[in-house]
């Protein structure tokens, strides 16, 4: 009787594991086709400029740079902060989030001078606050994601009034986020992957890569991926994923 029960239990486990594998998001490994070091200390996030011919990169040391598409510095903003962790740019402004100060800086995209400062209160750990910011053109809302403990997807209106907060549990942490072609993507440092999410924040695709300490990413105009490594102070280029 007991041995029969054991057999049944083992079979159930085997079936369950294989069923979950069938429904698990398919994995793909991304290959790096180029990388080089950049002259920016502790780069923490990157976004494509509206003109799609330059990048904005922020630094853990509270600095904002505009670079060419290879990461070579073209201009540095006079704005300084404590710990810039997230950046997004539209036609007119660059939005920079300071994780330590819990502030968002709206910076003129042409002159890189400060236009407005907005408080974004958050009571989590000092070093586990905002890590990514992006804008969803389909609903005209800004989104800020926190790193972990918990990973919170915070939705704001255009004036940065908080609309909603949703916990995300399908990654160990999130270090950057992007809306691309109306689809939400997360970068996870600890899981070394990029996640593609649907409208309900369910993971529908996952790509792994071998880049240490990935802290920021964006898509270029052709859909290729640019990833920053904070500790290596380097920029990596990956071909458009399938």
């Amino acid at each position, binding site marked *: 009787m007991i041995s029969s029960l054991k057999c049944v239990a083992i079979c159930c486990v085997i079936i369950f594991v294989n069923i979950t594998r069938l429904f698990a998001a398919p994995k793909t490994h991304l290959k790096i086709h180029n990388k080089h070091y950049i002259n920016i200390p502790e780069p923490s996030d990157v976004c494509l400029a509206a003109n799609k011919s330059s990048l904005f990169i922020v630094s853990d040391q509270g600095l904002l740079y505009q670079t060419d598409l290879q990461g070579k510095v073209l201009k540095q903003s006079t704005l300084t902060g404590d710990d810039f962790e997230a950046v997004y740019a539209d036609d007119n402004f660059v939005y920079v989030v300071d994780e330590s100060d819990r502030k968002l800086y709206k910076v003129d995209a042409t002159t890189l001078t400060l236009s407005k400062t907005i408080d974004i209160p958050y009571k989590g750990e000092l070093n586990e606050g905002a890590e990514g910011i992006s804008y969803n053109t389909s609903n005209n809302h800004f989104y800020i994601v926190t790193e972990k403990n918990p990973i919170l997807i915070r939705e704001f209106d255009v004036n940065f009034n908080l609309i909603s907060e949703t916990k995300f549990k399908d990654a160990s942490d999130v270090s950057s986020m992007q809306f691309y072609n109306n689809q939400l993507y997360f970068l996870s440092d600890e899981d070394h992957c990029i996640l593609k999410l649907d409208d309900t924040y369910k993971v529908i695709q996952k790509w792994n890569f071998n880049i*240490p300490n990935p802290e920021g990413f964006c898509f270029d105009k052709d859909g290729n991926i640019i990833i920053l490594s904070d500790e290596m102070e380097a920029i990596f280029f990956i071909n458009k994923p399938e």
Partner: protein
Amino acid sequence: MKFKILNLLFIVCIVQITNAQFTFNNGENSMTISSRFSMYAQRRLILDSGQVSRKKDLMNINRLQLVLKGNRGKHIKYDATFDIAALIIKANDPQNPAILDANATYTGFKAFDVIAGWGKVPYSRQNQVSFFESAFWHRPEITGGILFSRRDAGVTLHKNLFHKLINLYGGVYTGLGEATLTNGNDPSGGVEYISRADFSYPTRYKYTEIDIYHSVVPMFSLGVNGRYAKKILPDGTNFAALSNGEFGNKVINGEKYTYGADFSFQYQGFSFQAEIHQLKNVMQDSLDANLQPIQGRILPVSFTNKTFYSGGAFVQANYHSKKLKSAFCVRYEQMNLNNFVEGEQRRLSFAYAYMLKGTKSMVKVSFYTIDSKEVIDPFGFRQEIRLGWQVIL
């Protein structure tokens, strides 16, 4: 004093109950308050013959810490960590003093950063690893604060190069180590100089033991460090109580040279650490107890040359499984307190940690067996096991 301790305990309890780290921010400045707690049960499995007391089989609070970290403006960071359990017990345990950190760092100079105050000295990689990042309930004996101090009051300059692949440290300290906190300075007026250089590849290598995040590329780090202290006591004076350590050789009346090297590697959850240290102690007095450890026998100066050596090493291997949420570790260590004393200590240790929430909540069990002992450090037992729980809020 009792009232202040109760107030502190009350604050820590509130922090734990609310299960949150507090962050305060007033625009330019920010501060975080958090707490750390650990307790274990200990049993000595095999006592030496003649030993009957079981007083060391115990359950106790190991650490109860309040951590304050903050920034003032862009260039000033501060760090204050207090251990309330150590404050109450007052054991002056070098592995767990009542004040662990009380220092400030200024990062406004381009050439280097300045760290001033009380905290860990930049010597030994293992010394930099937080107790809460380890699966073990004990450090290796060689880096445990017996032969050289782990913390001191002083000033450190720090510089990193080549995208932080190279770190350089240099500083000056009291040289009394943990005893400085309670017993002040020493009559010699001497100080200690400490320096360290480490190189990592392909990225900066943090001071951790377990590769929890499963490095996607092989990483290694190599470090070398040295210390020099010259403390010549005027006639009729002594060092502050407890400063010369358990075996009288941590702070010496003379010159002390300490050298060490360390190597660390990690990849895909597997990690490995190795360290070696050598100490050369040149004594002022040829009849110092460290040069005359054998009762009833005087070793002549022509034999001792007023110098004795001590040192040790350890190797440690760790494996972290994300699926099992567990870390498995093994360590082998050796230490010689005094080359004029018969024997050396060798110990084999095993540790297992179950990570309820990473290192923030870990159930840890560690076991060690003593392979051989030094005559002046008989231990009184052969094997010990510790089982406990740590929580970081």
